[in-house]
């Protein structure tokens, strides 16, 4: 037995890669289902492995997870194990019937993507009317008292919308708004006008800092991710990528990653060959986070004063940008330092 004693507390599960959108910013290039996605039986068997791995939360994602016909069966199985389940959706098929199903399945909360005001959102989604549908979904969540986060993947097309989006979400009654910088993977690579540069990263960070510092009690509360840490100076140090330390991702065909935001080739095995326990506790697994040493820091991070804390930042951002870990370009601290702040 390895001396590794951590557990996958938070598990992201791509139920299917099937999607009803073809978003320009989709890191998974979602659209068609993967070949050989897990059967209902395999999914249930996987659910039954979670209690011994001490999983504390499962987030069902995709593709659009609600397009998988047995999503309720899976969610209810997890509920039987008393594991809270959240669902990440693009909102397109949310209606009153689906709200009732979500409640029946005991879903703990929803994450819903809103990627700009109407023009930017619909353009990113390649789907006119999708923005309006998200707003309808938000109204339905509010009416049904279903907890939710709005999630915005910030890119060059929507970065100037953020202030107005905040006003919009305040009116809607949204409590939490998660901002995450775009990672240049999947379909993003075909859309050269989306990725954030250092100046946009600074702009985003200063927007968040301004909102957090000046509107402390104003909803929605902004929740930052990864490279946006360091925005609020008094916060605890960001401890870097949790992939394979406290989080785990399951792909719809049963392959296991530390984080679903990582490219598909960064996987540790398949639950079709080994149990999730055996994959998780394999001393060879997740070496990029578990076996970190300072020599592994890439040129972007190696001289940074924060590198001992964040260990080179977001693995996904680093790997997709440079093909190596611990070299995260999407870092607010770095962008701000480069600008002389």
């Amino acid at each position, binding site marked *: 037995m390895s001396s590794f*004693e951590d557990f996958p507390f938070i598990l992201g599960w791509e139920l299917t890669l099937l999607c009803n959108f073809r978003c320009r910013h989709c890191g998974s290039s979602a659209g068609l289902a993967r070949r050989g996605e897990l059967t209902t039986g395999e999914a249930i068997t996987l659910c039954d492995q979670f209690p011994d791995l001490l999983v504390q939360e499962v987030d069902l994602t995709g593709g659009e997870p609600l397009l998988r016909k047995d999503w309720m069966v899976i969610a209810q199985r997890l509920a039987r194990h008393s594991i809270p389940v959240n669902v990440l959706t693009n909102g397109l098929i949310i209606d009153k019937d689906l709200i009732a199903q979500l409640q029946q399945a005991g879903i703990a909360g929803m994450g819903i993507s809103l990627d700009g005001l109407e023009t930017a959102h619909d353009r990113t989604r390649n789907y006119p009317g999708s923005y309006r549908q998200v707003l309808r979904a938000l109204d339905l969540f509010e009416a049904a008292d279903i907890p939710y*986060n709005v999630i915005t993947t910030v890119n060059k097309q929507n970065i100037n919308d953020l202030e107005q989006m905040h006003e919009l979400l305040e009116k809607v009654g949204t409590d939490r708004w998660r901002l995450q910088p775009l990672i240049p993977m999947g379909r993003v690579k075909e859309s050269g006008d989306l990725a954030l540069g250092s100046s946009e990263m600074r702009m985003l960070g200063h927007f968040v800092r301004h909102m957090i510092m000046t509107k402390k009690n104003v909803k929605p509360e902004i929740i930052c991710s990864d490279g946006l840490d360091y925005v609020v100076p008094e916060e605890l140090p960001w401890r870097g990528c949790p992939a394979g330390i406290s989080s785990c991702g399951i792909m719809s065909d049963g392959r296991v990653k530390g*984080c679903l*935001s990582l490219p598909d080739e960064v996987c540790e095995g398949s639950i079709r060959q080994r149990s999730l326990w055996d994959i998780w506790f394999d001393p060879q697994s997740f070496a990029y986070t578990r076996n970190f040493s300072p020599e592994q820091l890439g040129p972007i991070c190696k001289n940074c004063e924060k590198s001992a804390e964040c260990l080179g930042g977001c693995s996904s951002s680093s790997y997709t940008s440079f093909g190596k870990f611990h070299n995260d370009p999407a870092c607010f601290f770095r962008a701000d330092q480069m600008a002389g702040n």
Partner: protein
Amino acid sequence: MVDILAPKMISTRVWVEIPKIPKKEWVRYLVLIDWHHEKLGDIIKAQPSEKFNEFVMTTLQGYLEGKMPSAAITPAIMNLAEDHIAGREMILRAGDYLSLQKEFKTAR
């Protein structure tokens, strides 16, 4: 001999103590609606599967009846027995939990 299922027993379940998840370890694609506002203590108490629990309870009862478990899990079982005899909730630390799981998986 101590009957571990006697009425004075406050719990027939084992719990595992794991360190809480620092806010800074949140992952970008996750929702984490409740945890954000939850006042987490220094630990999270997690409950493993029923089958694992049955295995631990059987092993513990055997120990209390004088049957020694394998050397690999003896310290973990002794720790649980101590909790039990003192009338405390039975809580495993991660290291003990892992050794018991290894034995449990081998025994299946």
